[in-house]
C-alpha cells in the first residue's frame, strides 16, 4: 500500500484531499461530517467582516443529461458571526487534530483589520491561512477578493501585512479572472507568501431562463455575475496551475490545486502538474462527502500500480511535459485506425471528419451498418475521430513518423523547409 499522507509546509493530513473554502466548510457540523467521511483537511470558509447574503445563490450548467457540469455561486464570505466560527474551529481541531485546518481570510483593506483577524484565528487553532484574493462577486465591489488578486501591487501589499503578523504558514489563493496568474503569483511570493493555491472561481453567467428571460441565478427578477467552478473549469485551472508550476519564482513555493476536481483521477492530474494538495468543493456539493473514499482508494491503487510510494514521488512529474508550440516535433505524425471488430457503425467519426476536418474517412454504404475506414494518406492525425468515437479504444492513433529525427518549427524555418503540405 502506498502512503498517501501529505505534509504541506508542516501541515499534515492523512491524504492530500482538502475541502476548499466554500459552503461545505462554513460550520462545525459540516466539517465534522467531512472528517468522519475521511477528508484530509479543510479550508474553513472565508472569515472577515460581517456580511449579509441573498437567498438564491447557486446556479449550474447541465450537459448531455448530466447535472452540474459547471456550477456558479454568488455567495459572499461567511455570513456567520466571527466568534461562532472561531469557537467551532477550536472544537473541530480538538476533535480531529490529525486533519489540516486552514482558515481562509478576507479582512477589510487595512493592515490593522488583517492583523486582528490573524491573531484571533491563530488563537482559535488554525494551522495555516489561505488569503482569499479571488472571490469574483460581491466582495470585489467592496475592493476585496478578486479586486486584490487582479492587482499585483495591492496583493503584494496585503501579503506583506499578513506576513508581518502570521506565525503559521500562509497560502495565497489566486483569481483566474486575469490574463495570467503569474504576475500576482510572483508578487505574492516576493512578498513572502509560503504557498499559493489556485484557481478561485471564474466570473460567469450560467444561462438565461427562456421563460422569464432572467439570467441565473434568479434573485427577484435580476441576476449578477457569479463565480464559475465544477468539472467545466478543470482544464482552465490546469493551465493556470501549470504556469505557476513552471515560473521560476512561483514554483519555489508549494501549490494547492483547485478547480473542478471530482475524482482521484482529476486529483492526480493536478498533482502531476505541480499541486501538493488538491481542494474540492463542487463534487462534494453534488454528491456529499462520501466521494473522498474512492478518491483515497483510487489514488492508492494507482500509486501501487505505478510504483509510487509517497505522493512526493509523482507531484510535478508532468510540469515539464508542457512546452512551447515552437518546440514541438513537426516530424511526429500519427494516423487514426478504426478497429472493425469494435466499431458499432455509428458514423460519428465519419461525419465529424467529413464536415469539419479532413475528409479522411471512407464510407462504404451497407444496410443498415455502413463500414468506415481511414484514408491514411488524407489523415492529418488531428484526433477528432478518436475523441468523438463512443467506443473505448475503437479508434487508435498509430504513430507513423514522417522522419526519424526531431525537428521543430524554428529549425524548420532555419532550414527553409517547404510550408505547404497540400
Amino acid at each position, binding site marked *: 500500500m502506498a502512503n498517501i499522507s501529505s505534509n504541506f509546509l508542516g501541515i499534515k493530513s492523512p491524504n492530500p484531499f482538502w475541502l476548499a473554502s466554500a459552503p461545505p466548510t462554513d460550520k462545525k457540523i459540516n466539517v465534522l461530517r467531512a472528517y468522519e467521511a475521511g477528508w484530509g483537511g479543510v479550508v474553513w470558509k472565508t472569515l472577515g467582516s460581517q456580511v449579509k447574503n441573498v437567498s438564491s445563490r447557486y446556479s449550474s450548467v447541465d450537459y448531455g443529461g448530466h447535472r452540474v457540469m459547471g456550477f456558479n455561486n454568488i455567495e459572499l464570505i461567511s455570513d456567520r458571526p466571527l466568534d461562532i466560527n472561531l469557537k467551532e474551529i477550536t472544537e473541530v481541531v480538538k476533535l480531529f487534530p490529525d486533519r489540516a485546518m486552514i482558515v481562509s481570510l478576507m479582512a477589510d483593506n487595512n493592515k490593522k483589520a488583517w492583523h486582528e483577524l490573524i491573531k484571533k484565528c491563530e488563537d482559535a487553532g488554525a494551522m495555516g491561512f489561505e488569503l482569499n484574493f479571488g472571490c469574483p462577486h460581491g466582495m470585489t465591489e467592496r475592493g476585496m477578493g478578486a479586486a486584490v488578486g487582479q492587482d499585483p501591487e495591492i496583493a503584494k501589499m496585503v501579503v506583506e501585512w499578513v506576513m508581518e503578523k502570521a506565525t503559521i504558514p500562509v497560502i495565497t489563493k489566486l483569481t483566474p479572472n486575469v490574463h495570467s496568474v503569474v504576475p500576482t503569483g510572483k508578487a505574492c511570493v516576493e512578498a513572502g507568501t509560503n504557498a499559493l493555491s489556485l484557481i478561485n472561481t471564474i466570473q460567469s453567467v450560467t444561462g438565461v431562463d427562456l421563460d422569464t428571460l432572467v439570467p441565473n441565478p434568479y434573485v427577484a427578477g435580476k441576476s449578477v455575475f457569479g463565480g464559475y467552478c465544477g468539472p467545466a473549469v478543470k482544464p482552465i485551472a490546469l493551465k493556470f496551475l501549470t504556469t505557476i508550476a513552471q515560473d521560476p519564482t512561483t514554483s519555489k513555493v508549494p501549490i494547492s490545486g483547485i478547480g473542478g476536481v471530482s475524482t482521484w483521477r482529476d486529483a492526480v492530474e493536478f498533482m502531476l502538474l505541480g499541486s501538493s494538495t488538491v481542494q474540492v468543493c463542487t463534487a462534494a456539493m453534488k454528491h456529499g462527502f462520501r466521494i473522498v473514499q474512492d478518491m483515497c482508494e483510487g489514488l492508492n491503487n494507482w500509486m501501487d500500480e505505478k510504483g509510487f510510494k509517497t505522493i512526493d514521488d509523482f507531484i510535478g512529474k508532468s510540469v515539464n511535459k508542457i512546452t512551447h508550440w515552437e518546440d514541438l516535433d513537426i516530424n511526429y505524425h500519427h494516423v487514426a485506425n478504426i478497429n472493425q471488430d469494435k466499431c458499432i*457503425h*455509428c458514423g460519428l467519426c465519419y461525419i465529424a471528419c467529413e464536415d469539419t476536418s479532413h475528409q479522411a474517412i471512407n464510407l462504404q454504404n451497407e444496410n443498415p451498418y455502413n463500414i468506415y475506414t481511414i484514408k491514411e494518406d488524407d489523415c492529418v492525425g488531428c484526433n477528432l475521430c478518436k475523441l468523438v468515437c463512443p*467506443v473505448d479504444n475503437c479508434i487508435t492513433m498509430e504513430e507513423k513518423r514522417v522522419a526519424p529525427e526531431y525537428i521543430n518549427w524554428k529549425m524548420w524555418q532555419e532550414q527553409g523547409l517547404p510550408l505547404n503540405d497540400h
Partner: protein
Amino acid sequence: MITNNRLTETQYEQNFSDIHPMFETKDAALVAANKCLFCYDAPCTKACPTSIDIPKFIKQITTENIKGSAHTIFQSNIFGAGCGKVCPVEKLCEGSCVYNLMEETPVQIAKLQRYSSEKAIEENWKLFESKPSNGKKVAIVGAGPAGLSCAHVLAREGVDVTIYEKESKGGGLMTYGIAAYKVTPAFCEDEVNYILSIGGIDVKYNQTLGKDFSLEELQKNYHAVYLAFGIGTINKLNIPGEDLVGVEDAIHFIYNIRTNDFKNIPVGDRVAVIGMGNTAIDAATQSKRLGAKEVTMVYRRTEAEKTCTQHELDIARLDGCATLWLAAPKEIMGENGKVKALVCDVMKLGEPDVSGRPTPIPTGETITLEVDMIIKATGQKPYTTLVEQIGLENNKGKIILQADKASTNVKGVFAGGDAINGGKEAVDAVQAGKDGAASILSYLEIKN
C-alpha cells in the same frame, strides 16, 4: 363451453390495459433520449420502412423541442404515434440500434416516439399546413394506414382528397385488427382525427367498393384514384369440420374485440389458435385475457421458422399460452355441431421450400387436442374477385405495381398497402401511402 362475461370489469381492465405505458415523467424521457448517440446515416433510420429521422427526433427531445420532434416523426410517418405502439421494433429500428453491437440494450426508440407524437395528438398541435387547393381531386379507397398516409401527403400539397371507407371508422387494421392491449380503439380514433385535422380530406364511411360505388365512378369523378383497401379474411384450412360452431377467423375475432365491450366477447374454455404470425399471437393472448382456461398455439413448423417476432411470442408465453410445434390441422371433430377436438398431423421438417424455410412433412402420426374453440390465423386472403372484376393485373389477387411502386396497369389508378403485399406491418402501409402520393403528384404534375 364458449361463453362471454368470464371476468370482472376490473380483470378485463387489467388484462387489456396498454402494455406500452408512456414515460411517466419528462426526466425519464430525457434519460432515455440522452442515451442516443445521434448516429450519422443512422442504422435505426435505415431499418425504418418510413425512414423516420430517429436521431433527429430524439435529439429534439433532449433540447425540449417536442413540437419539432413530433414534426420530424410525422413528416416521415403520419401514423408515428400508432406505429410507436404496434411496430415490431425489435426487428426494425431498435433491433438495428448500434448499442446492440456494444452488447447493451438499445435506445428505447418506440417509447420516445410515443412521447413526442402522443403529446402532439393530446395537445392537437398543428404541425402541417396545406398549400392552397390546386383544383385536383383524388379518390382513395380505404382509410387505413396506406390510405390516410397517402391522403395526408396529397392534402399537404393542396389536393382535394375523398376517402371511401367500408367501416364506420378510419384506421384500417390499426383500428380493427390489433390486440387491444397494444393500441386501444379510442387511441386509434384520436390518431385518425388528428391526421384528418389537416383539412382537405373528406372521408365517406360505410362505403364498400363494388357495392356502394364502382371504380369507374371514381375514375370519372376524380383526377386519380388510390386503392388501399387492404386484405380480406383468413385463408380456409380446407379440412373436415371447418364449419362447426366454435371455429372462428382471427380477423373476425379481433374485429369483435375492437368493436364491442370485452365482456360481450365469447371465448372457449380450451382454445386452439392455428398459425404463428403476429395475428395468431394477438388472437391467442386475447383469448387468454378474455378468460379462456387453456390456449394452445398450433404451428406446422418449429419455433425457428415462426413468422411472429420473439417479442410477440414472449408476450404469449407470459400470458400462459402453450405452443404445439410441428402439428398441422387435419380434422376438426365435433359433437352436436360444436367443436370438440382438433386432430393434427405430427410433422417433421423436410427440404427448404420456395420461402427458404424447411417444408413440413407428415410423419403419419397424429395428435388430438381437446378444445371447444378454434381460431384460424393462417394468413389473410386478398380480395381476388374484386381485383379481377376491376381489371387490375394481379398475382393471386395481390395487385401488381409498376416500377414506381405505386401505379397499377390502369392509367390514373394507383395502389398500395396490404392489397399489394398480402399483409405486412402498418409501417409498411404508411410508406406505401407516401409512395402512392409521390406517384400521384407526379402524375398530376404537381411539384412538391
